[in-house]
């Protein structure tokens, strides 16, 4: 009997890990989508991507908390603000420094830290709560899942599918794809590359706004929250390859699974003789898996990063 | 003994065979012309010799020692130097400082050696001197390389290559992009290096231009050696003439 009970426990945990990772990986894919797209089309690594998410999250929170908007309008406002932010950042900054990748990195990182500072100044460093679309939870078999997470999952997939349809069906989507493959060629056949970039930054901003909203209501809302999404995006690009949507989704699921495995699996408390302890696995390990994947790739196959070494 | 011996060298990029089982050698104090139409794999051969690309197969021997898998700097220090087709220089350093680099030893912890005399000598040999009141002393030019004409950049490259005391000098299309006057100047310079006993491999797509300079020619076409011999022999070779016509007169 006890053996059966243990098996049962293991099964419950395994089920929980599978369900959680399927759900959160969709969000991760959405988080990385805008970052991957900007990298794929313009070869720009936008270190402010995580900050975009944060701006989206704080906008929704602000509209709800201080302007007393309903959640749907707050969500829409977040998306609009992020879209504008993408366009402003591109035209006000990135366009002028794009030729030097290093300066672009420093500039976008400085932007992220600027946004962090602004949020600290206006909203303090406290962790805030962003109300979910739907509260409560549902039972899937033996696992309790917060309803909002299922909505986040659905919304993420919807956004990804819409994005895919746009890129492959719409005229401007195809133009973006063409530019991603060959910038000079696109310019030669009369594509206004600057317009394409503006569009990609706008879309990337919008996607970040959606992702930020759900990320905040799922994970956390504080002025430092931009770091994790940035690392996740970076890890997904490294694992999934340059600008590939399919690769990104596979990578998102891989990293999401590892993440959930680390955070939701039973943790082991390791203690020294003086009763100082640390937890092996568990909630303090959030975000560790993407870091580990990145470091592992760096050490094992640095030339494999992005499929090219330049 | 041959100074450089290349045996069955092969390199492909994806499906394209850039160099196909190529073998040739260079004798000391000889100038070998490596001739072929554009895309014949000449620059790839140089990149393979310099260790910038790794061959799929085959070996490269320098002074009887295999150097196939050596890194570039080691090959340079063994005595092979290369002049790039597109000038590689330090845009924010003066001509003097550009040339000085090859006079600095590779060792980090070593007795200080003054690189100045060597640098001035390299400048003098390649005609990068400034006019000074004292006619006998060479002063390397102090301007930035960006101010030099194409011919000057070629001299700069040559000066840096010579600064490594090479036993073998690889010249990649030394006349490309030069004016007529500059072509004459650079070919005089190469001739003077030859007269000093410098061994050279010279890559060019233009056979006529190098006929007077070279002792022997290897003709490449689509990565394969199609002929080898003195300039006269090669010019008479029917296969070369055919490739010559097909290549649009290389």
């Amino acid at each position, binding site marked *: 009997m006890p053996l059966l009970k243990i098996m049962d426990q293991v099964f419950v945990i395994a089920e929980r890990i599978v369900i959680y990772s399927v759900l959160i990986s969709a969000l991760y894919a959405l988080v990385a989508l805008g970052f991957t797209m900007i990298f794929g089309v313009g070869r720009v*690594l936008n270190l402010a991507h995580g900050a975009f998410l944060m701006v989206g999250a704080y906008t929704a929170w602000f509209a709800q908390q201080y302007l007393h908007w309903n959640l749907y309008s707050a969500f829409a406002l977040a998306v609009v603000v992020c879209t504008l932010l993408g366009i402003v950042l591109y035209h006000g900054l990135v366009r002028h420094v794009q030729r030097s990748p290093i300066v672009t990195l420093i500039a976008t990182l400085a932007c992220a830290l600027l946004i962090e500072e*602004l949020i600290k100044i206006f909203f303090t460093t406290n962790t805030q709560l962003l109300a979910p679309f739907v509260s409560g939870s549902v039972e899937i078999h033996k696992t309790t899942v917060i309803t909002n997470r299922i909505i986040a999952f659905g919304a993420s997939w919807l956004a990804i599918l819409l994005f895919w349809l746009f890129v492959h069906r719409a005229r401007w989507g195809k133009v973006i794809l063409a530019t991603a493959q060959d910038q000079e060629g696109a310019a030669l056949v009369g594509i206004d590359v600057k317009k394409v970039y503006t569009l990609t930054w706008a879309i990337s901003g919008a996607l970040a706004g959606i992702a930020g909203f759900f990320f905040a209501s799922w994970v956390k809302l504080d002025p430092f929250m931009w770091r994790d999404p940035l690392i996740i995006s970076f890890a997904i690009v490294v694992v999934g390859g340059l600008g590939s949507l399919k690769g990104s989704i596979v990578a998102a699921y891989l990293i999401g699974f590892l993440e959930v495995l680390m955070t939701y699996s039973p943790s082991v408390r390791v203690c020294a003789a003086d009763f100082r302890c640390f937890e092996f696995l568990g909630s303090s390990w959030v975000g560790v898996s993407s870091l580990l994947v990145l470091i592992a790739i760096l050490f094992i196959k640095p030339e494999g990063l992005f499929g090219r070494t330049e | 003994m041959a100074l450089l011996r290349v045996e069955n060298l092969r390199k492909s990029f994806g499906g394209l065979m850039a160099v196909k089982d190529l073998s040739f050698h260079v004798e000391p104090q000889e100038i070998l012309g490596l001739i072929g139409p554009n895309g014949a794999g000449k620059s790839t051969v140089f990149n393979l010799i310099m260790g910038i690309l790794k061959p799929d197969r085959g070996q490269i021997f320098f002074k009887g020692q295999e150097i196939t898998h050596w890194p*570039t700097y080691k090959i340079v220090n063994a005595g092979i130097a290369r002049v790039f087709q597109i000038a590689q220089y*330090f845009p*924010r350093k*003066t001509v003097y400082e550009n040339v000085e680099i090859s006079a*600095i030893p*590779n060792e980090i912890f070593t007795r200080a050696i003054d690189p100045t005399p060597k640098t001035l000598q390299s400048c003098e040999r390649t005609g990068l001197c400034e006019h000074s009141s004292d006619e006998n002393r060479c002063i390397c030019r102090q301007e930035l390389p960006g101010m030099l004409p194409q011919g000057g950049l070629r001299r700069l490259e040559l000066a840096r290559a010579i600064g490594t005391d090479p036993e073998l000098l690889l010249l990649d299309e030394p006349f490309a992009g030069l004016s007529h006057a500059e072509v004459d100047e650079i070919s005089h310079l190469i001739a003077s290096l030859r007269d000093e006993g410098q061994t050279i491999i010279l890559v060019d797509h233009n056979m006529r231009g190098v006929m007077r300079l070279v002792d022997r020619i290897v003709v490449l076409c689509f990565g394969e050696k199609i002929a080898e011999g003195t300039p006269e022999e090669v010019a008479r070779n029917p296969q070369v003439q055919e490739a010559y016509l097909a290549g649009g007169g290389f």
Partner: protein
Amino acid sequence: MSLRTLKFVLLGLTVIVAGAVGPFLPSKWMTTLMYAQLFAVYAMGWDILSGMTGQISFGHIFFVAVSGYTAGLLNLYLKWPIWATVPTGVSMAVLAGLLFSVPALRLRGPYFSLVTLILPLAAARLVIILADWTGGELGKFGVTPLCQDSLLNTLEGLLSRLHIDSFRLYQYCNYYFFWVLMTAVGVGLVWLSTSRIGKILEAIRENEEAVEAAGINVAKYKIFAFAVSASVVGLGGALSVHTNEAVFFNSLLSLTSSIEMIVASVIGGMGTIVGALWGGFLVRGGEQLIREIAQWKLPIGAEGLALSFLERWATFIFFALLLVLLFFARQGLLPLLMGLFRQRRGEIRRG
């Protein structure tokens, strides 16, 4: 005047001024400038690798952390004395630098920078997971102070005649300790940067292929620069732990400090070492200046307009300044001055 002489003169003047103003500083500013000197060491350490070779590191604070936590924890738990903790900390930083540099140097440009950004983030996780030892985000007190009582007591009798109380004496001790460190590091790095090794590092920044074609092992020089850089930054980190008498997360692992090193170097002129030192002072001194100004009241309105809001904007102002500099004055202060100098005095003969 050669470039080397010029840099040594500028370094000398800066160091003399920093040393001479010490006794006249109010207590608050003395602390600020002490930390500015430490930060100048970090900035110079960053500059010898990133400024000179063009391999921009976003995560140099990682080496501060490795050295600082090693020294601090060895002292806290194994009671190692300072003369043992500092060298061990520095060695660990160098080791980390070497371990990291070998795979990292195969990456070029922005990919290298991105990977360096990950290091401090990973280290921060580790510190938090091991919070029972490291104190996590709060830090852990009880590290042996750099200026120990026994040392101070011997000096106190001597200095009491000069009307210097013991707290002031303690401050003096720390201030001049970092002054010595900054001077030593400055002299060493200026010498290195203007030596033939410096010339090669600069050349690597401009054209790696050409350096390799001149028979120089680029990877070896980069790794060397990595080791020097990590050791300098690590030395600062280990000593700062003993000055703070604590391992502080915010001073050993803050991403902001990591980026501020870049700010300092860009302000002063990347790859100039002396410029980075100036930049270090400008960043830390500027932050304190903003805090001072924040206590003023403008004579507007009946109550006066308090400027206290400025205090919270200090970091913001610096990042905004960085962006402006990246746009308009990418060359930085020292090259700018040298340009003026050159116009006046004719060409400075290099070499």
